[in-house]
């Protein structure tokens, strides 16, 4: 009842409900007869109600069982109001709430799904990934929970990694993927705002050169020094990245935020905050297991729909 500002509403609703039923019954019994006047020839033509001078109300009586059906529905209403919540704040003797009913139906549905999940839980992630039915379930889970950021095809987008390629920020083993799903990841690239703009431009050119992109060779030379001093700690001396903290490999062609010089400058100056939310409390372990298998399978199991 928190939606209402005072307990008076409960009393008001109980009154409307209770008085409504009594009023209906009173009306039914008080109106079951009417006084009419006989015609001269002894026939009873109508109920005596006339409108517009010539519209007369005839009496086509309802059957009496109809009346008792009405009484029966009033009795039903009273029984209902005793068993279920309806009279204001009274909770009903059955203790029914829609929340309880929903929770019960969730428990029931989980119970029904248990054997399906149990089968996959007893299997290794790689075995699950090879099972077409499990892949289909995994796909539905992916489309519901992951596709908003990573795309329906798992191809990712700016800031959201591509899950269908063979490049992994935190490692592509089944264990790693599962850990990403359970605990989430925070991919933090700190901002190097203290660097001078020339230094940033130099390091951006150096980083581009690592993956063979066009770069100013003079800047590349100077950038190597800046890189060693500021970036190598996480991205490694050779720029191969570090899976333990999700530092990307800078020598491949995969760019999470883009590989143009301007974008790299922005990344260095402002930093980046990648955020993969933890799904431990959102998804059941069974669903995480199926999702892990699906995501792993994207780059490890051949899709039957492709050539």
């Amino acid at each position, binding site marked *: 009842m928190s939606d209402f500002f005072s307990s008076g509403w409960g009393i008001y609703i109980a009154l409307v409900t209770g008085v409504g039923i009594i009023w209906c019954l009173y009306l039914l019994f008080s*109106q*079951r*007869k*009417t*006084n*009419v*006047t*006989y015609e001269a020839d002894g026939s*009873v033509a109508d*109920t005596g109600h006339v409108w517009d001078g010539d519209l007369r109300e005839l*009496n086509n*009586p*309802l*059957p*009496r*069982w*109809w*009346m008792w059906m009405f009484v029966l529905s009033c009795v039903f209403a009273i029984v209902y109001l005793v068993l279920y919540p309806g009279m204001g704040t009274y909770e009903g003797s059955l203790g029914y709430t829609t929340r309880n009913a929903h929770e019960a139906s969730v428990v029931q549905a989980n119970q029904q799904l248990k054997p399906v999940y149990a089968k996959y839980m007893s299997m290794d992630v790689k075995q699950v990934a090879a099972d077409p039915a499990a892949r289909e379930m995994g*796909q*539905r889970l992916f*489309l519901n929970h992951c*596709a*908003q*950021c*990573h*795309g*329906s*095809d*798992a*191809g*990712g*987008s*700016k800031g*959201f990694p591509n899950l*269908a390629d063979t490049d992994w920020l935190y490692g592509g083993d089944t264990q790693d993927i599962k850990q990403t799903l359970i605990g989430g990841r925070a991919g933090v690239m700190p901002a190097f705002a203290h660097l001078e703009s020339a230094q940033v431009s130099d390091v951006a050119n150096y980083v581009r050169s690592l993956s063979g992109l066009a770069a100013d060779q003079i800047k590349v030379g100077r950038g190597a020094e800046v890189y060693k001093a500021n970036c190598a700690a996480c991205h490694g001396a050779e720029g191969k990245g570090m899976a333990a903290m999700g530092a990307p490999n800078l020598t491949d062609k995969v760019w999470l935020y*883009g*590989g143009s010089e301007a974008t790299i400058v922005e990344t260095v100056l402002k930093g980046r905050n990648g955020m993969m939310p933890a799904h431990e409390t959102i998804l059941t372990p069974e669903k995480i297991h199926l999702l892990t298998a699906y995501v792993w399978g*994207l*780059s490890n199991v*051949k*899709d039957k*729909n*492709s*050539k």
Partner: protein
Amino acid sequence: MANDFLADEGGSQNTVELSLYEVRRKIYPRSVSGVFAKWRLILVLATQILFYGLPWVQWNDRQAVLFDLVSRKFYIFGLVLWPQDIIYLTLLLILSALALFLFTAVAGRLFCGYACPQTVYTEIFMWIERKVEGDRFARIRLDGEDWPWSFHKWRIKITKHFLWILIALWTGFTFVGYFTPIKVLSAELIAFTLGPWQAFWLLFYSFATWGNAGFMREQVCKYMCPYARFQSVMVDKDTFVVTYDKTRGDPRGGRAKAANHKELGLGDCVDCSICVQVCPTGIDIRDGLQYMCIGCGACIDACDQVMDKVGYDKGLIRYTSERAMLEHMDNKKARHYIFRPRVLVYLGIMSVLLIAFASSVFLRNPLRVDVMRDRGALAREVEGTKIENVYRLQIMNSSENPMNVSIVATGLPGMQILSSQGKEINELIVNPSSNLLIPVKVRVAIEDVKAGTHPINFDIEATESGPNASKTLRVRDEKSSFIVPR
């Protein structure tokens, strides 16, 4: 019982208190034979052979007519309807309503008298009642016996209800058989392994049949059916209805057979009340058309027999229009008024809809495709030179054969469709009566397109395979958009 209707005497001499509720007076219709009785028998048989027989008809290894609510598929011979086909139900209901308007305008409540389940089952139940208990007077006598019942009465009543319940149960069973495969249902019934809902609906429908056809009868028509109440807006003075010719019959009265009733100042109605006795809703048709008349024509058959016996012309009660009756037209002349504007309008609208309905069912495409553009990511740059958009394709095959599906994207130069894994998509196979959800990416070279949103099309072609497959190439053309970022 008549006293019940007029309750206590009121204050002044000719004022009475009238009850607005009455105890039902049981109706004992007398059996009748004749043209309309024969028609009714034919229609009872036709509708019931159809109803009881249809679930047993097989079509390509499945039940020909099955409404599978659990998997949301309606099978009607070669047609499999999905929830997306709900428009057909709408059209069917509109057509039914128009048919009702048309038939009512032309000839009153034909449906009520001959095809309505309420009438048909009441007719079957009354036929059993007549066979077991005897005709009208025997039944009135039997019900008039006082408590405690004699062995004879017990035996007769139990026999009647046994037969009624047998038919009711078979009806309930058949009804459920439209929703659960009837062969499975019969096996489950014999083994006592019916599911709770199947058992509930079987018994519920049986109970409804037994109650409605055995006890409620004309009360359903009088108090529950809305059709009775709105017939007055569809019937006009040119509508053919069961009509008592008051210009010919009144004034009514008994007379000796030899007497010349015209000299006695009497009409043709001998006031034998047989038309009232045969009426299944217990009305007097001589009061004119009324909402309780279900247009069954029993009174016509009965009156014609009497007219034959007393040597007058048949047709004192007949199917004719009010205008024809008042203006003494013969039926030929009265029929000229059938094709009046209202009927022609109903007929015109109905024909158009019927053609639309039939052709759309006949030309229905069992291939359906939904294209959903990914909303999370508008577009992405790949391999430095290409723009990629992601779509989910939902390919639905509502035929009963596997479909080989090919997809082509058009609208921009050099469009390429790839699977999640970035490979070219093979010809897809969509299983019978199922759907395939497949994420695809569409690629275009950056130099070929300008920034902005471009309309594109997915052209999907499919062919069915299998022994009963249709050879028709199924085509769908779904619109979507392709976004190129600035």
